[in-house]
Each structure stands twice: as structure tokens, then as C-alpha cells.
């Protein structure tokens, strides 16, 4: 078995030694290793202090076949950090940044409100964006829990949900490959916590990185590649069953 996390951690430290414009982050998700445990989903919520209904990452599950020949597929999704992101079409240019390493940054002070959220959401084929409508998980209980009152570090900046400025309330939020962690020398939370070992992440420009090596050696596909979005998230699967199950949903 490969030392997945430690090797990717070394890949990350090596990439951080290079100038930012020479890094290119890529994620690969091995559907054959995803066990549908949702650890990535909860890790993401915890890492980014996400409110109810906002989950940068979701794991979908589908059952297929007929007893006793049954298949079950688990499908994690998040913002694909498209190089041609359809979601930002028509947005003011200062509302977002496409970082040289590939991460699509939403500027929270510029991307706010339900209307803008609806527009972006309509334009994203991956259903990857969310609106922070100010709710708390513990708001109907005897007291709001303190872990809900801590700032988030999305994009490396402490932002608050408790009324303090700068705020993240009302912002349109999505996965950002945990850039606040990357910049501090940590892999994204969904990657380090992956219980099945399905997550790969690293610098696509580094031929020695593990993510590059799995992309070279395994069958890889991207979602809605045909729409020209150029996503930075690849899905790996070698099993016919997984592909068939995918097809059963997507034709």
C-alpha cells in the first residue's frame, strides 16, 4: 500500500517551494476506493465552519441492479475549480479571482445575496455553490454552541458569522481546495481525512507527484468535460460496474 498522505504531504511541501504561478493543483477521486463514509463531507463542514445546508462537498450514493446482483456507488463532488468556470459568467471581474494555481476564489465582499447565488448556481453544472443564509445548527436548542461561533478561514482570511466584520454571512460559498490549509502547508481536509484512501491531491505540474502518477496509471474521467469547463477534479475507476452505474443515472 502506498503511503498516500505522507507522500502527498511531501509533494505539497515541494510545490510550495516553487513560485505560486508554477503550481497547478489537481484532485483525483478514486471511486473504487470511496466507501461512502461521508468523512470528507463532515471534515469540510468542520474545517470551514459551514452552517446548515452549506456543504462544499457532498457524497452521493446510488444503488443499481436487481437482487442479488446489486451495485452501490458512492460519488463525492465539490467545486471542480474549472479552468473555464461557467459559474462566473456575467459576474463583475472584481468578484472573483482565478489563482495561478487554479483555485477559483470568490471575493466574499463582492459575491453576496440570494439573487447572485441563484445566478451562479444556475450556471454551475456541478451544483457546487451555496448561500450562507446565517443559520446555525444549534439555534433551536438551549444555546448556540461555541464551535459555531468561531471564524472561518476560507481563502486564508478570518471571517465571522456572529456579526463581527469581516463577515461571511450572506456570501456565496463553495469549495476552494482548502487554500488556507494549502498555503499553510496542509493538504485539503477532505484529502487527509479520507477513510477509504480515495483522495489524491497535488501539483499537476510536478511529474513526480502522486496525483500525477495515479492520473497516468489509472483510468480517469472528468465530469461534463464535453461542456468545455476544464475541471481540475478527476474521477478514477477501473470497474465496469461503477461506469455502468454512472451511466444509469446520466444516460
Amino acid at each position: 500500500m502506498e503511503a498516500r498522505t505522507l507522500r502527498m504531504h511531501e509533494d505539497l511541501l515541494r510545490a510550495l517551494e516553487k513560485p505560486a504561478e508554477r503550481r497547478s493543483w489537481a484532485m483525483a477521486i478514486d471511486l473504487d476506493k470511496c466507501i461512502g463514509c461521508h468523512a470528507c463531507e463532515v471534515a469540510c463542514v468542520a474545517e470551514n465552519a459551514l452552517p446548515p445546508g452549506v456543504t462544499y462537498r457532498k457524497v452521493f450514493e446510488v444503488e443499481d441492479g436487481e437482487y442479488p446482483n446489486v451495485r452501490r456507488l458512492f460519488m463525492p463532488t465539490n467545486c471542480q475549480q474549472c479552468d473555464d468556470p461557467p459559474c462566473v459568467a456575467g459576474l463583475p471581474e472584481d468578484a472573483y479571482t482565478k489563482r495561478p494555481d487554479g483555485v477559483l476564489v470568490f471575493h466574499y465582499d463582492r459575491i453576496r445575496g440570494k439573487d447572485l447565488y441563484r445566478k451562479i448556481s444556475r450556471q454551475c453544472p456541478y451544483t457546487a455553490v451555496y448561500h450562507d443564509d446565517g443559520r446555525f445548527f444549534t439555534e433551536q436548542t438551549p444555546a448556540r454552541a461555541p464551535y459555531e461561533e468561531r471564524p472561518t478561514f476560507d481563502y486564508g482570511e478570518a471571517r465571522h458569522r456572529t456579526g463581527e466584520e469581516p463577515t461571511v454571512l450572506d456570501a456565496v460559498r463553495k469549495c476552494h481546495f482548502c487554500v488556507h490549509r494549502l498555503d499553510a502547508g496542509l493538504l485539503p481536509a477532505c484529502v487527509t481525512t479520507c477513510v477509504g484512501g480515495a483522495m489524491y491531491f497535488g501539483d499537476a505540474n510536478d511529474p513526480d507527484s502522486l496525483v500525477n502518477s495515479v492520473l497516468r496509471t489509472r483510468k480517469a474521467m472528468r465530469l461534463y468535460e464535453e461542456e468545455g469547463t476544464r475541471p481540475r477534479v478527476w474521477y478514477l475507476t477501473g470497474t465496469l460496474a461503477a461506469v455502468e452505474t454512472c451511466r444509469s443515472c446520466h444516460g
Partner: protein
Amino acid sequence: MDDGGEGEAMNETRSATMRAPTQGGMPRRDFLWTSAIACGSAFLASRLGPAFDVLQRSQATPRAPGAYPLAKPENIIYSTCLQCHTSCPIKVKILDGVAVKIDGPAYSPQSMLPHVPYATSLRTAARVDGKICPKGQAGVQSLYDPYRIAKVLKRAGPRGSNRWVTVPFDQAISEIVEGGYLFRHVPGEEKRYVPGLKDLYLVRDPKLMAALERDAARVAKGEMTLEAFKQAHAAQLELLLDPDHPDLGPINNQFVFLAGRIQPGRKEFSQRWLKDAFGSVNWYEHTTICEQSHHIAYEQMTHQYKDGKWSGGKTHMKPDTLNSEFVVYFGTGAFEANFGPPPTSEKVTSGIVEGRLKIAVVDPRFSKTAAKAWKWVPVRPGTDGALALAMIRWIVENERYDAAFLSHANQAAAAAGQETSWTTASWLVKIERDGRPGAYLRAKDLNRGDTNQFVVWREGEAVPFDPYDKTTPVRGELRVDRTIGETRVKSVFQLLWESASSESIEQWAAICGVDRETIEQLAREFTAHGKKAVAELYRGAVQHTNGYFNAQAILALNLLVGNPDWKGGLSAGGGHWHEAGDKPGQPYPLAELHPGKLGSFGVPLTREKTHYEATTLFRGYPAPRPFYPLTSNVYQEVLPSARARYPYPIKALFLHKGTPALSVPGAQAQIDALVDLEAIPLFFACDIVVGESSMYADYVFPDLSVWERWGMPHTTPDVPTKTSKVRQPTVAPLTDTVTVYGEKVPLCMEAVMLAIAERLGMPGFGADGFGPGMPLKRPEDYYLKMVANIAAGDGPGDAVPEADGEEMALFLAARRHLPKTVFDPERWEAAAGKAHWRRVVYVLNRGGRYEDFARAYEGARVAHRFGKLFALYSEPVALARHSLTGERFSGIPVYEPVRDAAGRAVEAGAGFDFSLITYKDILGGQSRTLPNNYWLSQILGENYVIMNARDAKRLGLADGARVRLVSPTNREGLWDLRNGERVSVEGRLKVVEGMRPGTVAVSWHFGHWAYGAADTVVDGEKIPGDPRRRAGLCPNVVMMLDPHLKDVCLTDPIGGSASFYDTRVAVVRA
């Protein structure tokens, strides 16, 4: 939280939503920890020193990119989870004194494979996160559960009414110890005198305890007459439960401690308190509602013959999935429950993707593990043993077993055959006149040696041998059925064959509902990988009345391929450094450091570890209630036995972190016992939230959650390297501070025990608790000594390094938010011992001690080996008798149908056309994760009755329909809470293909009626429950009550497991 920096708007919100109504100007909601915030006293900030306050604010709320605070070792404390029993190490990240994020530590083999070397610096490790499952991540939501209690509650209405008053800790302790008319204020209880613990703490002299024990044993053995006993102890007869049955023990036994998930650390602490200092034998934990028969099957198979008896044994082994080529999972899997998704899952997924590993899953439900399997085998529930016996039959018939391995009769033969372990397969067993196998043949039986020597048949003669002889290899023939002199004997292998061939493969196939081809494919695949194939089992195969035998049959498969200790085979795991201090060179042998130890004796309330025939209660068969000579901790039997007053009535119950009212099959009987004031006159509980069982208590003491307290959990054998995990306080306690032995400590289980010990003057606690000048007045006085033992290691030269200056500084910095009631470096140093302190810090800084991954394997074998005898035939089981039928058990695995306590086959009757099973979703543990952890319930908000589509079609039920479960012993499908409320076992139907037709499954975490789901009245104020926490259903109450006993669920008479999966139910429209 530090209140100062949060702005006016925040405080206004708080005062609007949280400030409780007041009476006479006093806030009334202060029994919840959250009230500390509501009352403006800012529970965390108030406990921070001003210097730390500034330090932390400047460090922990960065504005500049790159200053991500959660990657700093100063903001991290390593500890251990307990959202499920896997107890993964955790890396708790703390911001402003609040635990905000939990990751897996890079140091731990449960979290990362391979884990980083133990010597890795804290700064480096801070930036490397490992894995942790969703329950573990949601730990902060159990820690900061808004319904957690901070103050002691005393019942204000009848049991179960959920009406309470807060009382001072000292008053509650005083009432519990002294007794009295404690519930005068409750209608109907005005004249009820409640006995106090002082009335039960009668034998206080260790010499007297020992003398009574010695003579009571002589009476039971018939070596002393009862009259002689009564004469010898005339002055002490009133101290005994029953002078006519002195072997029941002293009145002290009327105090019962019942724990749910209690682990090493608290286990030893509470046993020291109850068994060694209070003098009661009645200490129980919950394993029979988990998977006890699996433990007992392992124990019987791995016990060793020493000094004329079988003893010891490992309760648990696991496949070395990192190197296996084939694993067949019976009633379990790798990705959901079992012993932990984080340590096991990636070994399996990567093995499958790399083409190294194939797995098969035997489970009526198409689990997430089955989704990755080469073969899913939807077996009929409760017939796993039949399937395993069918495989054994095919393997023996086709001679695909490791005959050389099985022929090794002693250690020398194993060594000569390049093996580390050996079996009793070739040993001869005496066949009795009725044809039943009995004891192993001893050399002494042939007048050719002593009783420690056994016998094999080889080349026409009987060969005596010592199983542990290292010099003379003895091998035996496997198929022996003959007489030697007058004695009829058979080899163990022959007995196994006879059991496996008692049915044809077609007949076995009909029993287990798996076709012949599948059985053969499984058996062929299992025997196609040499020693790299393993048969693994857990809860699903054993929570049946035939659970022990199912487990034995499955374990026998492993011995047929001779896989123990081989890479990819069955592994004993890396083990742990011994926290109890019983190894040479360890500084604190805790059991010995107990001046004035009282000790205890007597028949346990559950009649466990006790042969009926060996007690003075024996009056022929059937016994009034079952005895469990071969198992322990028969959780489901504690309260019903108390209610039945057999073998004796009890007076006081202390419930800790357990919830029999929710979690035991046929739970109604448990509730009925808890509300019975005569059966349980005094009932106090220690819990973090008022739960389904603690709501019936007379007093509820708040406990610390696992993120605030100590523990030394052991590690699954799935981990091949040596591991000692340490649970330690990571954040300030949310419970009240109380004073015991003059010390200020947070309210918790230990505080309750210390306070009672102080009031009763129990030995081994207080100023000289461990010995002169060695106090046991605070939790850390005990637990830091355990850490010192771990740091010292298991022998000379095995100690960890000392923490250097930087590590000492980081140790303090990471604990800057902890109040003095929990953390005081000088006090901790004194408790650990000055000489050990820096090594203890080294261990605490890493949350435990972890052997490096490089030490996991040696050549083709695991480095940490079992290396001993496997008993394929259990002599203790074969010689024990069923206490109701008087019949002997089988020493070899057999298939048995579902049986009741009287030994009769159980028939459900017409109309109950589904088998009911449960399972655990990865998002839930049993009673404390879903749905109260909102990050988890956001993903899975309720559970379902899961049914195959063809069954749903037959019943005309659509996906999503509301249905109720009813059973032969719960025909209405209801919980009667005995407080006027009834809860229907009702939920939504989920129609799937991945379920065996004729079986329905309900996951086991939902269906709460307390634990924050119910309205609670405290000091006259109503705290509304959270409707989200009532979601879904809990099926346990419809599980069958034993038709003979009627007040407890069906139970495995050997392993003691409670039957969760033998109930037939009907699914009706709600």
C-alpha cells in the same frame, strides 16, 4: 468563549435566546452548562488566566493569510475519541479555548498508514493530519451538546417523569450515602425509606472478608457444613445476604455498578472503588449487548492449559488486511462498524484496487463493504455457523486444509514445521458412554504420565506429550475414532468433521439460504490463498442464541488453513504497553498500591462466571434463572435479576454511560425494572445528558465527556504495531466544580466515587490512597500514574525519551486554556512522579505511545505473534452444563436453531414473516451520535425500515410509506415509558434491492425519546426538547423476550450475547 471581543450584537442575541426566566432574581436554568454563558459568566473565559487570554487572542485570530492557527502545535492536544468503541486517536484543534476541529493524528497507526515515526517533532506533526471518521469529527457536537448537564439533578416527580430539582453535590452524596426519606416530596413516596450506601457497606474489614469468603467456599464445596459455618461466624451472619447461602456473599453485594461503554482507565478506577474498596462483586459493563459471544469464542479457542486448568486467552484477533489475499466477513465488514473504518478501510480498498485482495461479505444486507466485494452472500440471519460448517465440510472432503499445521500437537512440532502456533486438532478426546465427547484424554488416563500431558494417536500407538514441550516434536493423526484399552476416543479433527458432515452440503445450503455453488466457491476461494486467507466475524454473526457456536465454526476455518501469525493471516495485533503497572520496571503497580484493600466475593447478581452446580443454590434442574458459567458482564440480565430477586435482591444501582432502557433487546423489561422502586430502591446515574435510562434515576450526576477527561483505551488487533492510547483533557470542563478530599475537581464519575469513598472512609482513596504520601484525591492522581507506566514501558530500557525544553514549553502552551481544576503542571508532576514527569509529557504530547511502523512485520510473519496453542475443542465448554436443562454443551462447533432459556426451539407463530436485523451506519454509533450530532443528522436525518422490493410489492407498500414493527412479544410495537407516554416503533420504509427478501433491517442509533429529545422540567422551568432528536425509530423494544423467562431477551447460554437478530416481526402500516 471569550466574551469581551464579540460585540454588542452578539451579546444581545445571547440574552434574547439564552437567558433563562428567573425566579426571585436568580437564574434558574443553570443546570445546563450553556447557562454559564446565558448568565453572563462566560464559562470558558472565566477560567482563563488573564495572561493566557491576551496570548491566545493575539495568536488565535489571525487576519493575515498564512497565519492559519489550527496548524500550530500550541493549539493542538492529542487525545482519544469514543464516539464508537474503536477509540481512534484524535488531534483536537483548539481556538480561543474551544475545540473546533478534530482530525486524526499523524502519530497513530489507526489514523495514517504508515504513521509518522514516534520521534517526529510536534511542529512537523501539527501540519500532517490523518484520517478520522465522520462520527469522530462530529465529536465537538457531543462535547458542546446544548443539552449537557452541569449540576446534580434530583428527581422531583415519579421515576421517569423528567421533573427535576438541582441539588448541591454534597447534599446528593450525603443523601445517597446516608439514605432516609429522600423522596417525601414525591406523591406516593412520602413514607418510602431509601437505604443508603452506608447500610450496604457492612463488611469493612479485609480479614473478615477473606475469612467469610474462604469458609463460604468450603460450604459450597461441601467441605464445611452450614451449621459449622454459622457457628464459626455467628456474630457476622447479619452481614451476609443470606446466612443459609453464605456463598452469595455479603450485603455489600447489594450495591450494583452498571456501566455501558467503559474502557481501560475508568474500568480499573471503578473496579478499585467498587470491588476492592466497597466490597461488592457486582460490577458490570455492556459487552453482551455488543459482541460478547465473539470474545468468548476467541477466549475458549485461545486459552492455555496451565497448572491443571484452562485459563487466559485472547478475546479478539483480526485479519492482517494489509497483506491478506482473501477475507470473508461474517456479519460485519470493514467500512461501517466493526473495529473501525479508519484503521481498516484503506487496507481493504487499496488491496482491492491493487489487485492483491478479494473480499466476500456474508450479511443479509448489502452493506457498503459488500459494495466492494467479490461476492455478497445474503445469508439467512442466525445461520452463519451453518454456512461455516458447510465450508468446513467441503474443505475437509476436498482435502484443502493445512494437514501439516493441524497435525502439530505441541510447541516443538510447530517449531519444526516452521509454525509459531499449534492446535488441538490431533488431540484425543474421551467419548462417554452416551456418545458425547467429554474431557481430553490425559496421559494419566493411560497410566503413562500426568494430567498435564495429553495424548495423540500416531502410527498405531497412543503418544503422550506436553503441549508446551519445546524439544520433542509430537505430531498426531487427524482422523482418529477408536478405543484405547477400555476408552473410546476421537481426535478433535474427527469431531469437527462429524459436526460438519452432520448435514449434506445441500442440507446446509437449505438451512442458511445460500446455494451450494456459492458455498463451494467461498470454500474454494478461502483455500486458494495459502495462509493469506482469513475468516473474520463480528456482531452480526454472534448476537444470536447460537452466537458462540457460529463464532467457533467461523474461527475453525482459520485453523484449517493455518493462518495465525502469518502476514495476511489471523493476527493478534501489536498489543499495548501495560498501563496497570504490572510489568517489571514499571513505577506504579496500581492494583498493589491499595493499602487496606477490602476485596469482595459472592455469586454475581447475573450468576456469571459461576457454575450452578457449584453453588449452595443448586436444587436440580431447571435453575430458576440461567447461570452463565463461561461468560461475564451479562448486561441484559442485571436489571431483570434484580427485579426477580434471584439470586438476591439489590438495594442500590449506579448507572454509568450506559442505557439499558434503550439499548437492550426487549427493552421494555429493562424500563419496567428501572421504575420498580422495590426492586431498585436507590438508583443514581452519571451521564453527560439526561438520557433514556438516566431519566429514570433518582439522582443524575453530570459526567465529563470524553474530550474533557482521562482514559487508556486499548487498540484493535487490526493494528499490527504496539499502541498505547491516552485520553486526556483537551478543553475546560463544562460541569460544575466540586470539592472532594479538600480538592477542587470537575464533576464527573471519578468525583462521585471519590466523594462517596471520602464519606464512607473506603480504603485506597484519599491522602494516602496509594500508600504513605501518595494521595488518590483527584482523577489525575490515578491516570497520570498509568501514563507513567506506559512511558516506562514493559521492561528495562523500554522507556520513551524525555521531553526537551521546546516540548515542555509546547506542552504548557497547548494547555493555556485549561483551568486549575483540571490542569496544574506542578500537581501533575507530583502525581506522575518527578522522575517520570518529562517522559510522561513526551507521551501526553503525542496522545499516547506508538511503535514505529517499521516494527510491524518480520519476514513472512507479523512481528507481534500469538505464538501459542489454539484449542479447536473447548474442554471447559464441553464439561459445563446448561443450568435449566442440565445438559452438557458441545465442545466442538455445532449448528443450533434459535432456543429460549429453557432450551426449547423458539417459534414465532404465524404472521411474523420477516427476520429483523440491525446495523450501524457509518454516521452513527449506538445511542450518542445520531441524531444529536447535527453535522451527521444533516446527512442522515432519520433511519428507515429497509426492505427488499419484492417483499414491498407483495405487501403493497411503497417506498417512503410509514410502517410499524410488531413482534410476538410486543404485538403493539410500542415502548411504554411508564410515565404516561408511549412511543411507537414506527418509521419510513426504504425499498431496496440490496436486502435479503424476508429480512428487514433498521439501523441502530435513532428513535430517541430522551437525550435532548424530550421536554425536561428543572426547578419548575421547562426545557423543550429538540424535535430533530426524536427522528427515526429504535427497533430494540420489539426484539423478542425470552418465552420462558418473559422478562429478558433471548440470550446465548454460553457466550452471554443478547439476541438482536433472532426476532420475527410483522411490518404493518402505521
